């Protein structure tokens, strides 16, 4: 089974101090594949790449190369090569010697070295630069040399750590095409790390979306874009509106105060779900007649190819719409969405479920401090219980001193009529909050919960 995979990563975990950077990572890479590790900064993608390269040792798990465990092998003995984020060319060597570095270490005959280096420099269109010092090259040229330096060794897998991040937009687009072309010509497996979702969609055969040390979704660019498995992926990849909805029955979903036909099945009846609507999938027409629902255009901006509009819907939601036609702000428009353009996702959670301990009459300890609440009679002091708090029942205060405990806004998601925030408390716990107020990522907040909003349950349920 594993034989078909050039790289097979099994149960990989890594912590730096108390922080779990990678948590049970599993995926495989096929021979010749262009696979991208995609995620926001700090999601663990670079650490994962560095583990494959051998610069970081995993705490747990294995990395198989051609079916053999390479975990203990030092980087210089792995048949892999890396293209580093900031090129990492050797400044004291000229272009030729940079590219020849690996081959000279292998003690190949100088004729062969020269032939291979020249061939590779030709591949990256740097033929006339052999004798130039690397400091005299532009960023894009340096990156080409770095790619040639890695590929000239014919590695089994080429690892690329955000190779284009330091280039300007135009240059980045050109290099993307060239990378794709090089990948096609050489047939070498590429593992590519980036935080740029567009780059990932353009280049990859397969995308591995990561967040907070975990894999969120693995799939082809089309799958990831059209069928995100959760609200993180939906929000991270492309533009989207993510809304709370209810799966009424198979192929019928309710959101934004309307019912829609959809293509999803198997969620059960009346189950709360997240619904993703891509702005280009909303059909906008000049009159509400014949449309599924109506709205009033709030704003309209020209984006080069299309217009981007925000529409207030008849039931008070805000929806992003992209269309080739523009509609003046204030216009009443008709809106429709095709069933197969509605992506329904299971909710990861429907309320906060926190571990707590009964500490006295009407008192529990959770999130590292003591809370008043109604504790049912069957629980005694010292019992370990679960406390449920609805997303909407967590109060956020401007000053962290005013709350029972402090926290930081870690992630935010606009859900059409409210924000869904992920709060990281001072002790490192997560708390999810629905609010109408506008917060920014990184804001420090005070957190408070009213006694009647905490529901106590047994841990056995």
């Amino acid at each position, binding site marked *: 089974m594993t034989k078909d995979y050039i790289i097979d990563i099994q149960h990989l975990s890594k912590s730096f101090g108390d922080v779990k950077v990678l948590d049970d990572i599993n995926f495989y890479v096929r021979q010749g594949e262009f696979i991208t590790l995609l995620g926001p900064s700090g999601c663990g993608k670079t650490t994962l790449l560095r583990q494959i390269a051998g610069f970081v040792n995993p705490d747990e798990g294995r990395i198989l190369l051609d079916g053999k465990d390479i975990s203990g092998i030092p980087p210089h003995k792995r048949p892999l090569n890396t293209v580093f984020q900031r090129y990492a060319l050797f400044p004291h060597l000229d272009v030729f010697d940079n590219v020849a570095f690996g081959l000279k270490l292998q003690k190949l005959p100088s004729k062969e070295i020269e032939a291979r280096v020249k061939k590779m420099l030709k591949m990256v269109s740097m033929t006339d630069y052999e004798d130039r010092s690397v400091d005299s090259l532009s960023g894009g040229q340096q990156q080409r040399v770095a790619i040639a330096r*890695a590929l000239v060794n014919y590695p089994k897998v080429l690892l690329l750590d955000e190779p284009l991040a330091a280039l300007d937009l135009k240059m980045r687009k050109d290099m993307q095409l060239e990378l794709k072309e090089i990948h096609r010509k050489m047939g070498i497996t590429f593992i590519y790390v980036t935080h740029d979702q567009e780059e990932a969609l353009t280049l990859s055969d397969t995308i591995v979306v990561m967040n907070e040390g975990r894999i969120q979704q693995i799939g082809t660019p089309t799958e990831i874009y059209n069928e995100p498995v959760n609200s993180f992926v939906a929000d991270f990849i492309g533009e989207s509106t993510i809304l709370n909805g209810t799966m009424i029955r198979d192929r019928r979903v309710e959101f934004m105060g309307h019912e829609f036909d959809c293509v999803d099945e198997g969620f059960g009846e009346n189950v709360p779900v997240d619904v993703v609507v891509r702005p280009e999938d909303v059909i906008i027409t000049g009159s509400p007649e014949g449309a599924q629902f109506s709205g009033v255009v709030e704003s309209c901006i020209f984006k080069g190819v299309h217009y981007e509009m925000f529409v207030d819907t008849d039931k008070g939601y805000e929806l992003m719409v992209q269309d080739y036609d523009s509609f003046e702000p204030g216009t009443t428009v008709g809106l429709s969405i095709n069933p197969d353009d509605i992506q329904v996702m299971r909710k990861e959670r429907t309320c906060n479920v926190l571990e707590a301990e009964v500490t006295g009459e009407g008192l529990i300890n959770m999130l590292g401090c003591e809370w008043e609440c109604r504790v049912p009679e069957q629980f005694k002091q010292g019992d370990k219980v679960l406390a449920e708090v609805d997303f909407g029942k967590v109060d956020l205060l401007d000053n962290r001193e005013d709350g029972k405990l402090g926290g930081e806004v870690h992630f935010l998601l606009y859900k059409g009529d409210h924000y869904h925030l992920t709060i990281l408390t001072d002790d490192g716990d997560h708390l999810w909050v629905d609010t109408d107020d506008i917060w920014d990522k990184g804001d420090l907040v005070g957190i408070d919960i009213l006694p009647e909003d905490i529901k106590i349950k047994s841990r056995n349920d």
Partner: protein
Amino acid sequence: MKKVLAKCYIWLLLAMLYAPLLFIAVFSFTESRVMGSWAGFSLKLYQNLFSGNVSGGTALLSAVENTILIALIAAAFSMVLGTVAAIGIYNLKGRARRTMQFLNNIPMINPDIITGVSLFLLFVFLRFSQGYVTVVLAHITFCTPYVVLSVMPKLSQMNPNIYEAALDLGATPAQALWKVLVPELRPGMISGFMMAFTMSLDDFAVTFFTRGTIGLDTLSTYIYADARKGGLTPELRPLMTLIFLVVLVLLIIINIRATRSKKATE
């Protein structure tokens, strides 16, 4: 008027700084035994110095030889130790790194006399017989921080990934150090070597306390003894002049290298 005053001030200051050097340089070109009396221009003292026909006998020349040899050995060892230490400190994180940098700075501010006496006591305590070896060890001790200081900036300028890039391309850690790190750090190492060399050349207090009783003399301890015997050996004047010129050249080289590497990074 203001400008004239400012100019006067700077010239006066320079005169004060350089008058003694000029003085000794001028009087190296006369035969007079006593410093300060001019007995006509002559290259006799230079001739004596180079032919070995010195009034103090061979003691002066062997002191010169010792001085240079000790400085070279100490500078070489310091360069290696200091570079390795700098790489180590650079790879530390946060607080540990700041602490180590601070600890590295203390011996440089510490008065030589204290370093000298402490080393003397240490060698006595360890029952090292004092002589050439202890002097060299002592010089390595106080020279190494200067090398650390001159290599650190090179490390900070360096792309931290190039060592990993070398490993990635198949270099063993030793090859990566030799083929990539050392060439990158070489300018800092050379500056450090030259600084260590001049510091060692210049030292009196530490040498005085660590040379023991075997009669080992460097230039500074020789001059000290010579002056106490009454009157300096006249050949010291051309010698001082030459040493000053050598140090001046070294300093100019260091400065040129510094401005060059600055330009390269800009």
